């Protein structure tokens, strides 16, 4: 059976690419510290020696639209083109191309359907910065095949937080039962408190530093009980109008497991939002050098 080599959760800040590649007067003052944290975070994936990446993110109204909106969708394609014109325009993101691990996609779809998740699928999926940002930070050579999984954290009605957690637990079980010798890293990105298109956007910190502090504590300690007790679809409007992306972190807490303490925890308080980075090494991942 396949081995879960690492479980990784992070924010996906689309400004990282431009900040980290800029020089001279264009380079923001926080870029060097940010790059150092990302390089340390990248090392946590490299050390796990993955062969395949399962990548959880959320389409930002790029390919998926309100005339036909899936709640949870698995990409099943041999290849994925990546990044969109408006991401190039606003964030300077490059166009990318990634191979797909189609047999694992097929396995997750069949077994996921049988496990009670009516997963949508796509045979021609263009992936956006929720998946390319972690590729650029964690595996910039983008040389490993992926299985993209999209969640709806944007377009109400949304699934409940507990459903994200259940899906995370199911993804973990399914990857562990995949008949393969591959080492699989499961990576997901979301948000802490975030405001986009509202009065609290682009402040000196994230819109709700207290929520961020609490959220980092929940994630780092795997405290799903508290997170599920305190987070609801209604409550997530309060820390910022784009904070439902925190449910992707909750999904990843489901992947990591109840009370699983993260082996790597880091964060960076940027203007506009707090960045946060977590890596767990399951026992069965073996020796991590």
């Amino acid at each position, binding site marked *: 059976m396949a081995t879960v080599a690492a479980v990784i959760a992070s924010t996906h800040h689309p400004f990282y690419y431009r900040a980290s590649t800029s020089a001279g007067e264009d380079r923001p003052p926080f870029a060097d510290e940010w790059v150092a944290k990302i390089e340390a975070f990248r090392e946590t994936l490299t050390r796990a020696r993955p062969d395949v990446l399962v990548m959880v993110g959320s389409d*930002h*109204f790029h390919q998926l639209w309100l005339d036909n909106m899936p709640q949870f969708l698995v990409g099943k394609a041999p290849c994925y083109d990546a990044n969109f014109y408006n991401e190039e325009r606003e964030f300077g993101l490059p166009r990318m191309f990634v191979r797909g691990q189609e047999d694992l996609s097929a396995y997750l779809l069949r077994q996921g359907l049988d496990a009670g998740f009516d997963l949508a699928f796509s045979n021609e999926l263009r992936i956006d910065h929720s998946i390319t940002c972690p590729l650029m930070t964690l595996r910039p050579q983008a040389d490993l095949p992926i299985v993209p999984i999209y969640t709806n954290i944007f377009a109400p009605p949304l699934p409940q937080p507990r459903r994200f957690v259940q899906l995370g637990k199911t993804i973990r079980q399914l990857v562990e039962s995949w008949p393969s010798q591959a080492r699989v890293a499961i990576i997901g990105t979301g948000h802490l408190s975030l405001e986009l298109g509202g*009065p609290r956007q682009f402040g000196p910190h994230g819109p709700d530093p207290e929520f961020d502090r609490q959220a980092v504590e929940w994630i780092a300690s795997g405290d799903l009980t508290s997170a599920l007790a305190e987070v609801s679809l209604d409550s997530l409007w*309060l820390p910022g*109008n784009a904070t439902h992306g925190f449910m992707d972190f909750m999904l990843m807490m489901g992947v990591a497991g109840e009370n699983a303490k993260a082996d790597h925890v880091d964060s960076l308080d940027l203007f506009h939002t707090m960045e946060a980075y977590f890596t767990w090494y399951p026992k069965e991942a073996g020796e991590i050098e």
Partner: protein
Amino acid sequence: MSRYLLDKFLYTVDRDPDLLERYRNDPRGTVQWWEAERANVILNCPGLECSTWLAFTHAEREALATHDYVTLFELGSHNFLLLTLFIALFERDYSEPLGFQREFAARLGHWTVPYPDIST
């Protein structure tokens, strides 16, 4: 209530560089053309298979035609679509980094949660 159609306008303009410039330069004309020619196009269907019933309310049409993002926010257009499109339209007119984004926030400063409903 046609929040869906408001969002469809923001979405389809945001993803088309030519239409974006057209909307910046001639908002009223672009909205009028779009409502007549594009509003009822189902995005994953050929032109033969259009919808027949989608139209803006007067308030929505006016808000779009005047680039009035405060009113669009108040009408419940999706915050992410609204921000992304309006950054593309107006960020270029501000010399300070994030100057437009901060003005956008300030002009909505009279709002506290709960914000207008964005569900469609």
